[in-house]
């Protein structure tokens, strides 16, 4: 028990364990109220929430948000915002699908390699455009990415002529690989975990990661400490575009098609996930695992509306309230922590004086 507690502490900080607890509570409550249905083939009673299909569906939905939320977290820590991720998703997916359609028949390995490089490449390029415009033109990221949000989606729309484009089966068989033939498709979730782990390592372990926190905390002081602030800022938008490209590759492959209307409105879910995960829109604060948990929490709340057969029209109201409540609680917690730290150092000061 002790080691389990230790492991838990090592894996999650207090803010993250708060999110895990909330997610578990919602899960338990949901399974309790979800009711049962009887499987026609086996005649077994099955919980409407705790069953392979629903859990997998929830996890898969969360994956796409979470992958992008990792990139968004970097942007938010740096003090910026990226409204264009949903559009980058659509453009990357369309670009990949159109190229593969025109390329004709290819070997499965070539299809996956080309598909991956195109969707990631387009995502990266879009991010680069955002970053260079934000730092070069010195315009607030909200404005630049609001503009590119429409521009990127517009390009996807024009290029695809608003058609939905099928992607080759080779991609689907990778993204929707069946786990032991149980009709469980874990690839999106595995990629979510991988991207989260990479994001967490990047932020906590690398110089670049530390520099992102520094720039978000105080860009001017970072410049005075010799940091190349513009390069760091371009970097975070590139990573944000890249994660949108990854999500597009997994998403389009998983569902078997790409459309210019894909991921419409996702940017707000993604920003919400990062913020529910404790990232501060004023910069300097945030973490990758928390953003993933934030995405899971939001999708879970959405799922509970469906499972409990509440009126679908209430979805937005409930999600909106949940986001506000989550952030208010998080800030309260942060304020208490700050107060505790202040008290500690004040005590140290008075002890020093007495000594």
């Amino acid at each position, binding site marked *: 028990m002790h080691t389990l507690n230790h492991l838990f502490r090592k894996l999650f900080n207090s803010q993250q364990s708060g999110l895990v607890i909330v997610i578990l509570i919602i899960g338990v409550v949901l399974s309790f109220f979800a009711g049962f249905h009887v499987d026609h083939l086996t005649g077994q009673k099955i919980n409407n929430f705790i069953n392979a299909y629903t859990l997998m569906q929830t996890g898969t939905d969360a994956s796409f948000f979470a992958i992008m939320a990792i990139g968004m977290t970097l942007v938010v820590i740096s003090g910026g915002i990226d409204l264009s991720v949903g559009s980058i998703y659509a453009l990357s997916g369309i670009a990949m699908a159109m190229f593969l359609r025109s390329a004709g028949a290819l070997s499965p390995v070539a299809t996956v390699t080309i598909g991956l490089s195109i969707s990631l490449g387009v995502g990266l390029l879009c991010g680069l455009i955002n970053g260079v415009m934000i730092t070069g033109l010195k315009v607030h990221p909200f404005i630049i990415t609001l503009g590119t949000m429409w521009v990127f989606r517009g390009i996807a729309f024009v290029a695809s002529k608003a058609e939905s484009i099928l992607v080759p089966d080779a991609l689907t068989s990778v993204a929707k690989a069946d786990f032991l033939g149980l009709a469980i498709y874990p690839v999106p979730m595995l990629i979510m975990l991988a991207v989260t782990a990479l994001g967490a390592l990047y932020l906590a*372990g*690398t*110089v*670049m*990661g*530390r*520099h992102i*926190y*520094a720039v*978000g*905390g*105080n860009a*001017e*002081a*970072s*410049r*005075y*400490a*010799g*940091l*190349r602030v513009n390069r760091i800022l371009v970097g975070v938008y590139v990573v944000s575009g890249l994660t949108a490209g990854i999500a597009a590759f997994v998403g389009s492959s998983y569902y078997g098609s790409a459309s210019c209307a894909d991921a419409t409105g996702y940017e707000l879910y993604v920003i919400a996930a990062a913020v529910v995960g404790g990232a501060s829109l004023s*910069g*300097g*604060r945030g973490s990758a695992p928390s953003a993933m948990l934030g995405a899971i929490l939001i999708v879970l709340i959405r799922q509970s509306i469906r499972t409990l057969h509440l009126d679908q029209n209430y979805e937005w109201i409930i999600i909106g309230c949940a986001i506000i409540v989550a952030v208010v609680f998080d800030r309260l917690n942060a304020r208490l922590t*700050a*107060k505790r*730290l*202040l*008290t*500690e*150092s*004040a*005590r*140290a*000061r*008075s002890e*020093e*004086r007495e000594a």
Partner: protein
Amino acid sequence: MENIHPIIRFEGIGKRFPGVQALRGVNLEIRRGTCHALIGENGAGKSTLGKILAGLYQPDEGRLILDGRAVGFRSPRDAFLAGIGIVHQELAFCENLSVAENLCLGSLPAKRGFICRRSMKAMAEQTLAVIDASLNVETVMAELSMGQQQLVQIAGALAGGARIIVFDEPTSSLSQVEARRLFKLVKSLPARGITSIYISHRLEEIFELCDNITVLRDGCVVATKQASAVSEKELAAMMIGRSLDAYYPRRTTGSGGKTELLRVKNLSSPGKFSSISFSVNAGEIVGLAGLVGSGRTEVALALFGLDQQASGDVLINADKTLITSPGEAMRHRIGLVPEDRKRCGLILSMNARENISLAILEKTATFGWVRRKKENELAQTYFDRLRVCAPHVNALAASLSGGNQQKLVVARWLAADCRLLIMDEPTRGVDVGAKAEIHGIIDHMARSESGILLISSELPEVINLSDRVLVMRNGRLAGELPRKQASQGAILKLMAGVAA
């Protein structure tokens, strides 16, 4: 005489903040029509006491007696209505609004809900006339200097019928000229029957302005003295609770090495400064004096690669170099401790370790990965060496006092192994104890063969630490004084442009 009864009496005032007893059992009387100084180190409780009087804080215990009657202010507005105003640099205005709008904010003249601009302007001009300040009342607040903003604050307080004005560290961000103007105004207040309470840790100005001085330490009153009956040294000793060997110890060394670290030839930047030439040797402290706005800070920024318009020759170790970015300056082992610590020096949302290691992180990393053990060791070393007072090296920078925050910035450059450190106002807003420590650090750096370019508005600091003093005036080098000739008078003459 009405002077027999004090205008204000604090009786057993106590105030707790989470984790600290800011004030305990403070008894103090302030006489009508005097200028009364409250002095003490940072954290001594002097500002807290001023803020209690101005209604910004409420005492936990004790009574406040105003004109013989106990009063309890629940807000600054209560205090204002009772005739108490405060001049406080952080109690800011709406910077986006004009002087007139700010002065009339409490009671904007309006007709049917629309603001009457003409009467607002007249009201504001009348208010400013009280202190003979000539300002365009339609100027946006943000465009005024700190000194002008203070004048507006004082005018606002006087026009509101203030009988008592609390000045909380009023000169900490004023230029000398602005400070002189403020002093003149403060000196004129007793004649108008106004009592001033002057909170500061600058002893020179207290002797100039105040009749009585109360020293606070650790939330208690140490003593109240008449200004004429006490010396600066005695006050400093009371403030820190032990006698300082010397308040501003004059450095004993002063030869300076002979190896030239930096030579600047004809450094110019359009509209900021021109034809600046000087050198800094290893082991030498070169003071750079001048009025605020004379171009001192701008020269420092240019040397650190933060002025793209700067032209001229910079020689480092006799090699001609062009420094176009702070990164480049760092490669030449130049560091800068900036003037505005909170805006340019520190990342307040990060902890002490991260702030110390910020400039060196990239160099100590392997393939872009932070080496935590090495980082910890490095940070801990300088954290201990500079005696940063915090619970541990992972304490948030925002939770430290001004002096300790400044130590973090200095530690950053020590960790980065700088050979030339430019320090812009290194002891601004730092208490006496920490100031002495920072002076010790500067001295120690010079002894270990680093070069220091020391910019300061405090002449005693420049004089006592520097081996040579450069004086700037209106963007030009007005003169260079060797250590022996660097007296306060000589420097002031050069600063003001009076022929010596």
